[in-house]
Every structure is written in C-alpha cells, then in structure tokens.
C-alpha cells in the first residue's frame, strides 16, 4: 500500500428486501462520496439505520457496493473476487465489533494468534507477535485466560489486540464501546487514540456516543454530511 487513504466514489448501496418484488428496495447510500486520509481517526455518527455499519463493511471489503468505487491505498477493492478480498482483508484491515467474538475455546493469547495462522510466521514468531499485541493493550498478564474469565472491557482489549496483531494499517471499529460502562469505554477509546497517534493506524469508528467521538480527530455525522467534490474536504459536523 503506497498510502492508506480511504476513498469512496459515487457509492450506491441498495438492498433488496424480498426477492420477488422490485419496488421493495432499500436505498441506503446514493451517490455517496468520502475520503479519509491516511493517519486519521474518524468517528462516524448518525441515527440508527443511516448506513454507518454498511459503510464500514464496504471499506473493509466485507460487502460490495451496488455501484461505485471503493479505493483503499490506491487499490480498487470492489473489483476483487471473494478469495482475493479475503486475502486482502487479512493483510490490510483489523476489525473491532461491539461484540468481541472471541473464540471461547481459546485463551487470550491463542485468540490473538489466530489471524497469524494465515501468515508465514513460525510458531515462536507468532507467539512473540501475539504477546506484543497483548502487552500493547495492557493484557499481557491475562494471556493464559479464557474469554469467560475476562471482564467485558478486557475482552474488548483482547479483540483489539487480535485486530492489530498482523499490523494492518487500517482499523475499522463498529461501536466498540457499545457494551461497556463509561470508565471502561474511556480506557478502550484512549487505547484506540494511542494506536492512532503512536502507531499511525488509520481508524474509522462508528459510534453513537458523543463522548467517544471526542477521541477522534474528525467526526462525520451522516445525517448532515455532504461531500464537497471540488474541495475534497469533509465538512465537520456540528456536534
């Protein structure tokens, strides 16, 4: 990747509610444009159903637009096929969801190691990488614990460690603090801010939490968002 710019051009995303009727379409995004620069920490806000998650899925290659281009780091990913996308995700994107989706049968360490199974790293290298990622999220002392032995905040930290272990340039977070209390949420958000500032990760975070948005370097509110094609500037939302 030459840069980590995220560009959405003339995106149209339409869902078909039922297969046999044509009028039952849900247009989530119509001619939507967005540019996020490398190294930004963007908070994506807006009312429920506005298509925030949908955007995140498009950027992360989990879903494809009905039309338009998704260009990440100069590569147009909406043309990749299923297996190319899978490979691409492993190399470039880290995901953090509201639910951690850790594998209950694996320890924190093994969970973090999981994405490295797709790399050429050997066993000791994988161990080392996972341990580093865990210490980065201050969970080194819990490496041997199983998810059910951890608190919600700790689980989310492990999930973040898993998202960053293969060193992706972009982190996509969908309401990462949605299940957490204020104090724990603040810890997680500081952690994300640290990953952004100190490790240069580009972060796109969907959130409903105004306080969470304060950690971001930029806020985009989909409800009021318009895109100035000429200036390529994203209008700051009024909070």
């Amino acid at each position, binding site marked *: 990747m030459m840069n980590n710019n995220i560009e959405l051009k003339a995106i149209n995303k339409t869902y078909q509610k039922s297969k046999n009727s044509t009028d039952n379409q849900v247009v989530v995004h119509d001619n939507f444009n967005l540019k996020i620069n490398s190294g930004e920490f963007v908070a994506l806000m807006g009312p429920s159903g506005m298509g925030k*998650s*949908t955007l995140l*899925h498009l950027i*992360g290659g*989990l*879903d494809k637009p009905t039309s338009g281009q998704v260009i990440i780091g100069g590569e147009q990913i909406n043309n990749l096929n*299923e*297996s190319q996308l*899978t*490979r691409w*995700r*492993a*190399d470039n994107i880290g*995901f953090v*969801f*509201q*639910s951690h*989706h850790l*594998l*209950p*049968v*694996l320890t924190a360490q*093994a969970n973090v*190691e*999981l*994405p490295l*199974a*797709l790399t050429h790293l050997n066993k000791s290298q994988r161990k080392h990488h996972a341990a580093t990622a865990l210490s980065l999220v201050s969970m080194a002392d819990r490496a041997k614990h199983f998810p059910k032995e951890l608190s919600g905040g700790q689980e989310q930290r492990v999930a973040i460690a*898993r998202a960053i272990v293969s060193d992706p340039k972009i982190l996509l977070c*969908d*309401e990462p603090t*949605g*299940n957490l209390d204020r104090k724990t949420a603040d810890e997680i958000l500081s952690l994300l801010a640290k990953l952004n500032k100190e490790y240069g990760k580009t972060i796109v975070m*969907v959130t409903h939490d105004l306080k969470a948005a304060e950690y971001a370097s930029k806020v985009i509110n989909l409800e009021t968002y318009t895109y100035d094609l000429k200036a390529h500037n994203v209008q700051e939302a009024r909070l």
Partner: protein
Amino acid sequence: MSLFEMIIKNSFRKRIRFALTALSVAVAFFLLTLLAGIDHALNSNIGGNSQFRLMTSHKVSMTQSLPINYQKKIAKVEGVKAVTYASWFGGYFKNEKNQLAMSAVEHTSYFSLFDEYLISQPDLDSWKKNRIGIVIGQGVATEFGWKLGDKIPLSSSIWMNKQGSFSWEFVVAAIYQTKGASVDDKRIFFQHRYFDKSRAYGRNNASWFSTQITPEANLDLITNQVDAQFNNSSFATRTTSEQVFIKEQAQQFADMAMVIKVVLIAVFFTLLLIVCNTMVQAIRERLNEIAMMKALGFSSFNLIKQVYLESFFLLSSGAFIGCLLANITLSQVQKLMSNFLSGITIDPSYYFYVFCLVLFAAFICSFFPALTIKRLMISNTLGAKQ
C-alpha cells in the same frame, strides 16, 4: 494453535453431545463389524475353488456308485477344466467309535482340484509313489499322534478287501495343513487305484466325481449337460455345485446376515441424520465466530476444511470404539462357535473400507455446514447489534 488442536477443542465444546453422538456412531460400526466378521466366515466357507467345483453323484442315492469312465465323459463337456473322483471308505481306527472321514481319491488329480488342503510338494510326490500311503490332516495327526512313515491299520465298515478282511494296511505318507480355519483338518485320503485293486467287489466304480469348471463357464449349462449325458444310462447322475451345497448349510446364517444388513442400512441412515444434525447445530452456534474468522481473512475453504475434519474426528472416534468392541465380541463368539462356524475374523482390508466409509460420511455430514459457511454474509452476521 495448530489445526489439530483447534479441531479437538471445537469438538469438545459440548462434551456430552460429542460423547452421545460418538456413541451412536460406535453402535453402528459395532454392528457393521460384527456383520463383517460373520460375512467373512460365510465367504471363507463357500469361497475359493469350491465356487467353480461341481459334484456329480448317483441320481438316486449318494451311497450308490458310478463307473470310473464317467471321468473322461464329464471332461469332454465344454467349460470343464478338470475332473477327479473319490469314494467313501467309511473308515475307523480300532473301534467303530473312532469314525474317520476317510476317502479314496484319484491320486493324480484330486489335490490339484482341492487346493484348500496344503501339502508340501515332496510329501505329495512320495504319497503318489506309495500305493498304500495316506494323506492325513494335521488334526488327525495331532489326535492320534501319527507321524510320517507310521504303519497304521484302518478298518472299513463298508469295504472288504481281497483277503476277506475289513482291516486295511496303510502308511502315513503326508500330512496336510489347511488354507483358512474353515477347512476341515481331520480328513484322510488314500489312493483310489489301491482301493480298486484291493477291494473284493465294486471295482471300477467311484462314489462321486468332482469337476472344476473354468471361471467364465456357465455353471447351470454345464450342470445340465453333464446330467443329460447319463440320463438314459443305468447310472443317471445328479450334479450340484459345491457352492450351493455348502451354502445350503450356511443359508440360515446368510439369512441372519441379510436381516442384519437391512437393519444396518437403517442404522447408518439414522446415524448420518444424527451426525448431520450435530454438525449443523455446532456450526449454527458458532456463526458469529465463523463470520469473525472470515472477517479476519480465513477463507471459506479453510473454515469448511475445519468442519470436515471435525466431522471426521467425531465419526472416527465412534468408529474406533465400535470396531474395538466388535473385535472383542467376535473373538468371544468365535470361541463359542468354533465347531459350528469357523473363520469369524476381520480382514485387515475391512479397516480400509471403514476408513473410506468414515471419510465419505464426514463429507455428507459437513455438506450443510459447508453451505452455511459458504453463504455466510459477514456483514449481516457481525452487525453491531447482538
């Protein structure tokens, strides 16, 4: 975390469910293995050369003899490879209580047709040269303690010799071993030409003819042609195939095996449903994790492979337990039925068959989970909402 560890850990998530499912697999393979053991016994009793051997005897009664020259006449029928003959001696040792399964056989051809009796070439040659020689089974040798070269007087309850005595003189010339546990090791054979020269009456007759036919020959056609030849003579014949002969005895077992087979098909069908259901459930419980792994960059193929291996592990654990228990059971059954039905063992190739069966069943059982994984939309499954 190796793939293997991952499979084991996933398998044991729901231990009780795993154990119960594996147990039902074990029951199915237990039955299958039992059947294979009994089937093996049946097949080893009717298999081999006997499949292609015909037996021709007097149409009316086994006790009546046929002229020896029938050998040449039968040999002329197309599809016949070799013909030999034998006569029942009705022998006993010292006391009529010590009945012996003893027959006079045409010495040049008999053992090439009946290759289930294993005789070393030098022993066979020396027996052929020794007019009063007998070939005895290892079972006979052990029972009476007879060795090669021993002179043994044996009596017949049917045949008087020219000296007017029912006691005949013999020398042990060869001891045969058996091919497979199902072959009788207590028989005694001696030369038909000695029998013919020495008996006081009934010369140039034999009790029955054994005919070997070529594998591709039509059994029924030959049977009919042989009998048709002698139909109008004073010695009409009745020809049956040995297979039919022995199969009649084993029919009851075969019927039983058939019933087990039908039951077994039902059992395996149910088994597939059970394991399929287990796997579908197991995957459904993990949809979120699977979607997460997909998001992390695990390909559908990779995840499907894991499900396949998990099914395979479940099925093979059950199959292993089932086969093990069946083996223990079969060895007990063999002890109990050694006189009745011998050769109850499991052929090593059976385990290869089981292996293939497990591979295939694992394929079937991971089919629906595989479809689910393939179609799983990450974006739908991993929404923020839970």
